[in-house]
């Protein structure tokens, strides 16, 4: 499809949103809710320099939702996190900022910056650690998952007997920022899910993005497997594709989450790199407050990948979560990581076991 055609579709969709939203002009019930989320951590680890026992200040998240009318809602999520390069040691960021127009029952049009609905984790937990079943995100979030998209989204939920849901999105892709996209070809996300039982969600998604230049922007958390000076990094175009499958079941006694990702990054230099990630979480609710759990987290980046660069890594963790109430929980996690390949060098190195403790809260 030509760039001109993409641009025309984009403009037409924005026009449609304007027309639909202008139909609902009379504000009836205005309701605004503010919430905050944060976490503190303690970790005990060991590297070449010896042992470390550190307390750490985690992200602090300010969340706002406001009904501007019966059919229009604003949602914002703003995070402050530690950053040693900042003059104040902290940097703020807008993680979500969107307007949602609920034009007919359970169908909405969303415009703004969202967490790309590619998998269960990215669509549900956002930056609220108090909702995380474990201490941190799957490893694939650092390499494959396009965390954010700024653009236009069509969403449906709770449709039919199986509670079918869909998300279709066009927007700024991986290499763009919140104010600039380096081509007229948007990234495209298509995602569907069903919720056959209360607490259960099964989903599939496909993400398509042609990066004009291999420059991860603010819309991904993509890292390279090792620190590579900018001048030595591959700078050319990348055809980035990601297919994901999620199975989540958070029931009264047993919790289970599986996130599977198949990614290809295609370049003229090294061809098609086929990558894979697999994340499994299983928890047993011994009581409503007490949950021992297990994590299996594996990632394999192919030898010819020059978006992330080669890597093969496995993390196993055992943990325990104690929920004081729905706004406060304590997680204790013992984890060990194995690295089988790193930037084309095959070797097996292991790190850990490390102890991590997290106190996550909402207010």
């Amino acid at each position: 499809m030509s760039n001109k055609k993409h641009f025309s579709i984009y403009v037409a969709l924005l026009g449609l949103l304007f027309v639909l939203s202008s139909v609902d002009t009379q504000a009836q019930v205005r309701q605004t809710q503010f919430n905050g989320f944060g976490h503190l951590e303690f970790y005990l680890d060991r590297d070449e320099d010896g042992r470390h026992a550190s307390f750490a200040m985690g992200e602090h998240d300010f969340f706002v939702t406001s009904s501007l009318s019966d059919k229009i809602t604003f949602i914002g999520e703003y995070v402050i996190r530690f950053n040693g390069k900042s003059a104040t040691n902290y940097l703020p960021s807008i993680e979500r900022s969107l307007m949602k127009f609920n034009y007919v029952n359970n169908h909405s049009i969303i415009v703004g910056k969202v967490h790309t609905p590619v998998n269960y984790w990215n669509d549900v937990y956002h930056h609220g650690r108090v909702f995380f079943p474990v201490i941190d995100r799957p490893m694939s979030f650092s390499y494959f998952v396009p965390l954010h998209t700024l653009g236009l989204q069509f969403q449906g939920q709770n449709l039919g007997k199986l509670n079918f849901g869909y998300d279709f999105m066009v927007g700024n892709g991986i290499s763009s920022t919140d104010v600039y996209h380096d081509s007229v070809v948007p990234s495209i996300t298509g995602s569907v899910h069903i919720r056959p039982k209360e607490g259960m969600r099964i989903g599939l998604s496909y993400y398509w993005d042609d990066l004009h230049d291999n420059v991860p922007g603010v819309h991904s958390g993509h890292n390279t497997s090792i620190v590579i000076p900018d001048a030595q990094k591959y700078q050319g175009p990348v055809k980035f594709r990601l297919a994901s499958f999620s199975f989540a079941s958070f029931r009264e006694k047993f919790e289970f989450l599986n996130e599977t990702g198949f990614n290809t990054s295609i370049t003229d230099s090294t061809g098609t790199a086929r990558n894979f990630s697999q994340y499994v979480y299983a928890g047993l609710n011994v009581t409503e407050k007490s949950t021992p759990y297990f994590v299996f987290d594996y990632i394999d980046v192919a030898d010819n990948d020059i978006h992330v660069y080669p890597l093969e890594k496995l993390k196993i963790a055992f943990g325990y979560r104690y929920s004081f109430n729905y706004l406060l929980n304590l997680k204790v996690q013992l984890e060990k990581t194995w690295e089988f390949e790193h930037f084309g060098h095959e070797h097996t190195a292991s790190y850990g076991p490390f102890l991590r403790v997290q106190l996550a809260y909402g207010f």
Partner: protein
Amino acid sequence: MRTIGLLILLLTLSWGGFAQQTDLGQLEFAANVKGVKSLTSKEVVQIFRNGRSLWASGEKVIIVLPSNKSDMAESVAKNLYGGSVTAMQKFWLALVFQGRANPPVFLQSAEEIMVYISKNPGAIGVIPKGSGDIPESIQLTIR
């Protein structure tokens, strides 16, 4: 092969689990919605689980629940959500945070709940049976 076997076992376990029980007979409902005087029990449960964002009339669905400090909260959580007050609060906070639901209105007393519903078109609320009088104009019958 062992990994796949373990995954299948975990999926099987998570498919089963404990069904969340509801007992609507212990509750009374009120709604201020054009043309809605009765609903089936299935429809009510679906609405109170964020199954509907707009009524057929186009009004926004506003869920009204007893706040966690109210004496009525435990009965509503148990009989409508099949769990504890904490689980009910977590259910709604998580949905609101995901951007998939508007926040419910939590109120302290049955009287406050009835006044709020009467004044706000689209509102639907619940109280335990016998905990307050529901004005006839907003009474909702469960079929």
